[in-house]
């Protein structure tokens, strides 16, 4: 052995370089994928933007085709958020502060199970089980609160309405909000909590004074991530909602969301219809991107002093 193997130049150096480059390439590929998602959607949707107004579905140009379903998407997401955010926060509080220590972890798993159920099964459940169940409630709403535009009758006799779709969405968004806020509630400094209790605060006063102020940015971003999910959810709406024109009443059939519009029409679409739907997908992509980036920005802005990341 005349040469020391350790001192030999280049032993393994090239593989070191190659490995570094491979990891770098994988990282860059992710960026490329995200940008090509935007680029391909944009390129394929150009025909829809350029088409004559009367060629587009609805016969009045792309924007008047898209805006009712954008509003529909926002309505569905708003119902889901209005129901899921308070319940989600309370459930997170239950798991982090109210449940017996020993059972809290198990309860957490139970709520996570809600997130594991595939969306198509929620859709089927909403279509076959929940919608018929809610028809009597809708009849009652139409009879007694019909003077409010959102409950204007006659109520749908199948129950396949925007409100049902919103409730199903709320069930799907709930575990996301709960999981994220629970993590943040658990990070509340123990000393703050104990100080509040030592001053004679009741448990709720302690939560109001120590836990909630600490968790506020985390709650906001959790809600926004849930909103991102609610905006993009497809199958639950496609199965539950009986779509139609934009209507104010939530208990009649009607309204439509972008994602469900794409899912229902894409399999039979070709040429201009195809690029219309891809353009609708682009609009959805931009909306959810904006919501998600806003949420991430809120998190990163408060990262230093809240630990809510």
């Amino acid at each position, binding site marked *: 052995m005349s040469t020391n193997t350790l001192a030999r130049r280049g032993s393994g*150096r090239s593989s070191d370089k190659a490995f570094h480059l491979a990891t770098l390439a994988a990282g860059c590929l992710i960026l490329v994928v995200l940008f090509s998602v935007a680029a391909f*959607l944009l390129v*394929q949707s150009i025909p829809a933007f350029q088409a004559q107004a009367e060629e587009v579905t609805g016969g009045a140009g792309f924007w008047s085709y898209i805006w009712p379903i954008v509003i529909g998407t926002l309505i569905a997401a708003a119902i889901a958020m209005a129901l899921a955010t308070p319940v989600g926060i309370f459930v997170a509080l239950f798991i982090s502060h109210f449940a017996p220590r020993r059972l809290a972890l198990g309860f957490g798993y139970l709520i996570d199970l809600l997130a594991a159920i595939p969306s*198509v099964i929620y859709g089927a459940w909403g279509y*076959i089980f929940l919608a018929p169940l809610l028809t009597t409630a809708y009849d009652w709403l139409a009879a007694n609160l019909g003077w409010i535009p959102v409950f204007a009758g006659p109520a749908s006799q199948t129950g396949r309405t925007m409100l049902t779709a919103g409730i199903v969405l709320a069930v799907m968004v709930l575990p996301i909000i709960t999981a994220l806020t629970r993590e943040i509630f658990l990070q509340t400094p123990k000393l703050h909590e104990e100080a509040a209790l030592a001053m004679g605060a*009741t448990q709720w006063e302690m939560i109001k004074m120590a836990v909630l102020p600490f968790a506020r940015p985390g709650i906001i971003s959790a809600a926004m991530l849930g909103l991102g999910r609610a905006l*993009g959810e497809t199958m639950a709406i496609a199965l539950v909602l009986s779509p139609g024109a934009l209507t104010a009443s939530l208990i009649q059939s009607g309204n439509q969301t972008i994602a469900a519009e794409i899912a229902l029409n894409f399999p039979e679409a070709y040429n201009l219809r195809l690029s219309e739907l891809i353009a609708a997908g682009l609009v959805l992509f931009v909306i959810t991107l904006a919501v998600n980036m806003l949420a991430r920005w809120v998190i990163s802005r408060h990262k230093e002093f809240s630990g809510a990341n």
Partner: protein
Amino acid sequence: MLKVDAKQHQSQLTRNRLPRFALLAVLFPAAIAAAAAATLIGFNVVLWMVFTAVLFVIGAWLITLLVEGSRHAGNRMIRYVVYGAFILALIPLVSVIWTVLERGLPGLTSNFLWTSMSGVTGAVDNRTVAEGTPVLGGAYHAIVGTLQISLVATLISVPIGLMSAIYLVEYGTGGPLSRAITFFVDVMTGIPSIVAGLFAAALFGMVFGPATRTGFVAAVALSVLMIPVVVRSTEEMLRIVPNELREASYALGVRKWRTITKVVIPTAISGIASGVTLAIARVVGETAPILVTAGFATSINWNVFSGWMASLPTFIYYQIRTPTSPTNVEPSDQRAWAAALILILFVMLLNLAARLIARFFAPRTGR
């Protein structure tokens, strides 16, 4: 200066506190009043329980307000609201699982598991209903499709996700590129699944002509959803590998890439494997991207690169949305729920496997 009154025998600590039986004393009248109120509208158990809960919370709040004061009353109210929220969240979970079990179990036969839908037409279903014979046709082709698509998606996303996470943790520490990747991985987590499907459809549509629908296109769409999950979980696992291990390896003269592949990854492998399993569980139930990329088939397709392909979620969707026989929907319904049961079992098994992997293959930390 002791205040002498009727309550003198009570200890100072329990004065102005409700005794334990007080809540029961609220519950029974609440239940009776609720039963009366529910009967006025039309009695059913759900209505009765809801009324009982509402009346109980109001009654408990009132009695606490009178005895213990407003602060404790508010506290008690919130406590019950929080408990109620948790029960409310469990109702859909129980209801979904019950619905799937109740409707899915009758259809879950070996015939359902091992036959496809090829040759099963509306006429066949009509005859089944008319003669009362067992439902024909099954989800074999859909199970095969789901397994193939998930497998290919995993094969695409795991190397990319793993390598990116290694880059983030080991090489690009805090640089602008790694910050950009972290940010956009977070953003990618929020891409709606249907948009991922449209992307894959648009990409392959431009390269291979419009309406290119194969299992592979669906796998690419699922990879877009899966990669960020793999990156995030792997990154977290790599970050908790102690730096001393890396330094010990460098001190022995081991190259960086050997250190990563022989020391860092084996230490974190249980966490990585469990993260990947969870990522598979997340995409296996995705419907929308497969709907727009893989089309739909009624027979078995073993080739991911050509031809339309069925999958469990799209099978469920089409059996409910467009029953095989429009006049007799029961056989289609039964097939859909049996497929839903299989899908839920898949997802639950994957989740369970992830937890077991994380527990049993965790690195030995003892000496």
